[in-house]
């Protein structure tokens, strides 16, 4: 059966004394009845990728939850250290593979921070347009995944219908459906094809018509959805900030922090949009925040299409790309939260050190603090609240 070495390794993960390993109290009820140790994952329909939760259950109540990660760890930071600066961009697509455009944008901002290149305004507008389309293509399926984990099989199909249509737009502009490699250091790879703006306009009008019926009427007032998500994974703003949450999970607790407005980058200061916050801080609040953010993204896309200036799409870079020595920072509001890149360059044409701050990685700490005390089926909506992507937390 299991090879001796694998069995020892499995045992060691489980047998460490529960109390010592985690802050959660060691629950033995008055009859001294033991809790069940259960491993949920790494292959599990609701784990948003490869994640293994070692759970200690008292009946159906979770006493301790210890995520085991690393199943999709490719050590991207080590690979990036051995590649030229532009060759790292296809790597960043594979980080948070549900918000590829935002990863590219974050990395490119970090490199441009150390490189005095002037990015033409049209390239900035195209970048923001693509990023907001990507936010739509990531928020809508995340609502679909939340409903799938609650047991409803239909919303995920409607969500992926929207994502497929956005992906055909991406394929026409960048050439690929997911791994775009489109945003380059100094601008974007190529200009928008002539028929694309009109195609995006038609898609946005169609989406607005369908959005209310498919994603709001079907879900928002559904009594079972309300009873399964209201009060589940409840957090205060204080606790969320302490745990380092960013993005929709933080905004649903009432803290209005959005990098597009507080740490403005690219041309977001020229566009108006408002930052959505909610007060409840539970799963239902995160659903409402994501729905409202989709409408904000639609508003932003329209503004980008109206104000799109003419001109070149690529700044003029030198023959060899050698950023100044020192630290380069790039911070972007990805659909899951703050995606930051810290590049340490030593003047050569390969980065000395690249460090990605992935929102899924930081939001996942919620599992250790908030899950104990909930029921087993509540783990699923809490995963929906965070909506992590395994490429993100495993890097």
């Amino acid at each position, binding site marked *: 059966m299991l090879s001796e070495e694998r069995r020892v390794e499995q045992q060691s993960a489980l047998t460490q004394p529960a109390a010592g390993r985690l802050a959660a109290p060691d629950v033995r009820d008055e009859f001294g009845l033991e809790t069940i140790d259960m491993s949920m994952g790494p292959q599990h329909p609701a784990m948003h990728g490869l994640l293994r939760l070692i759970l200690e259950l008292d009946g159906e109540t979770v006493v301790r939850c210890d995520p085991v990660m690393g199943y999709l760890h490719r050590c991207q930071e080590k690979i990036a250290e051995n590649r030229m600066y532009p060759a790292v961009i296809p790597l960043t697509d594979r980080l948070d593979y549900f918000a590829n455009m935002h990863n590219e944008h974050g990395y490119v901002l970090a490199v441009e921070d150390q490189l005095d290149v002037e990015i033409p305004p049209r390239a900035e507008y195209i970048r923001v347009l693509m990023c907001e389309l990507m936010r739509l293509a990531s928020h809508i399926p995340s609502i679909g995944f939340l409903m799938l984990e609650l047991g409803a099989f239909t919303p995920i199909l409607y969500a992926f219908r929207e994502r497929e249509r956005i992906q055909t737009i991406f394929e026409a502009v960048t050439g690929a459906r997911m791994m775009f490699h489109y945003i380059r250091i100094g601008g974007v790879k190529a200009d928008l094809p002539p028929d694309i703006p009109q195609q995006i306009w038609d898609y946005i009008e169609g989406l607005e018509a369908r959005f209310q019926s498919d994603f709001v009427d079907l879900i928002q007032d559904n009594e079972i959805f309300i009873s399964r998500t209201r009060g589940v994974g409840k957090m205060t703003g204080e606790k969320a900030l302490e745990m380092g949450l960013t993005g929709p999970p933080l905004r649903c607790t009432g803290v209005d922090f959005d990098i597009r407005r507080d740490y403005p980058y690219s041309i977001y200061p020229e566009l108006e949009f408002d930052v959505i916050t909610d007060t409840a801080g539970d799963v239902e609040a995160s659903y409402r925040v994501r729905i409202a953010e989709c409408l904000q993204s639609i508003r932003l896309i329209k503004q980008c299409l109206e104000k799109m200036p003419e001109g070149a799409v690529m700044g003029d870079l030198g023959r060899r790309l050698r950023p100044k020595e020192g630290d380069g920072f790039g911070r972007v509001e990805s659909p899951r939260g703050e995606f930051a890149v810290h590049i340490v360059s030593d003047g050569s044409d390969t980065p000395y050190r690249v460090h990605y701050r992935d929102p899924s990685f930081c939001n996942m700490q919620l599992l250790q603090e908030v899950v104990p005390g909930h*029921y*087993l089926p509540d783990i699923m909506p809490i995963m929906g609240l965070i909506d992590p992507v395994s490429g993100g937390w495993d890097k």
Partner: protein
Amino acid sequence: MQTVLNLLEAEPIRLFLSFGVILFLVLNLAAILTMAERKASAYIQLRYGPNRVGPRGLLQPAADVFKLFTKENVTPGRADLWVFLGAPIAMFIPAALVWMVVPFSPDAVVADLNVGILFFVAITSIGALGVVMAGYGSRSTFSLLGALRGAAQIISYEVPLILSLLGVIMLTGSLSLVDVVNAQGDAFWTWYFLPQLPMFLTFYIAGLAEVKRVPFDLPEGESEIVGGFMVEYSGMTWALIQAAEFASMGLMSAVSVTLFLGGWQPPLPFLDLGPFNWVWFGLKTSLIMFTFQWIRWSLPRLRMDQLMDLGWKVLVPITLVWLFVTAGAMLIIPGN
């Protein structure tokens, strides 16, 4: 030749032959329902569903059955063999047995017991045993959780199921299903679902819970415990559990049609088809089965404590209140 026919007419042999026919019909019903389920879910989700095997996908059930026959029955290492293999049988027999009591048309009833409803209630309570056997027998945490959930759910939803039958029994005064249908008259406003509307809804919801379908499919919680008590089954054993699921789903809709929607009675008097009245029974049952599937593809799943609250704190009080209302109405309105 005549003696052979008389022999066949003799009571024990007729019963076995008709049970064989019923078994054949129920297995076909299960196969067709899997196909109907996949087509209905596909059309709701804006896709086509199986349309490759046979003309427009009609041979898909045959392909499924053939696959399940040839698939290997994997039994987990530590499983308790007898309990593990006995569970599908313990789940399928009740679902098939109760079909003998269901009146398709006045004379097409296998066994017109005068305690038909009591027989239905007694046999469906065996289903909980099958779930616990499956969950406990496969010796894995997921299936154990599924089994415990299944047992708690099925046993606690039998109470509203039975209470909602009492109203119908009080109105007809007899336990035999054929009498219940005859007492309902052949126009839809004389059917029992109008005077007994809350009872009908409770029976429908409790039926959904008995059959473990969304929003009550916690024993098989797809996204939580990955298949619950069914997780360790594959091949023919899994197929038998699925057949039991679909047979009991068809059974629940057939019984609710018999009790509340006037069995084989036509909705309007002039639509009476005489000997072909079982067509009405078929139409009404498939309508109810379609609503089962329609609910399955548009609602999420309840949590265990909410499931229990709904059962005990909502459905049981409704049925008790409506029993008094029915009793009062029967006293006040003479000749009802």
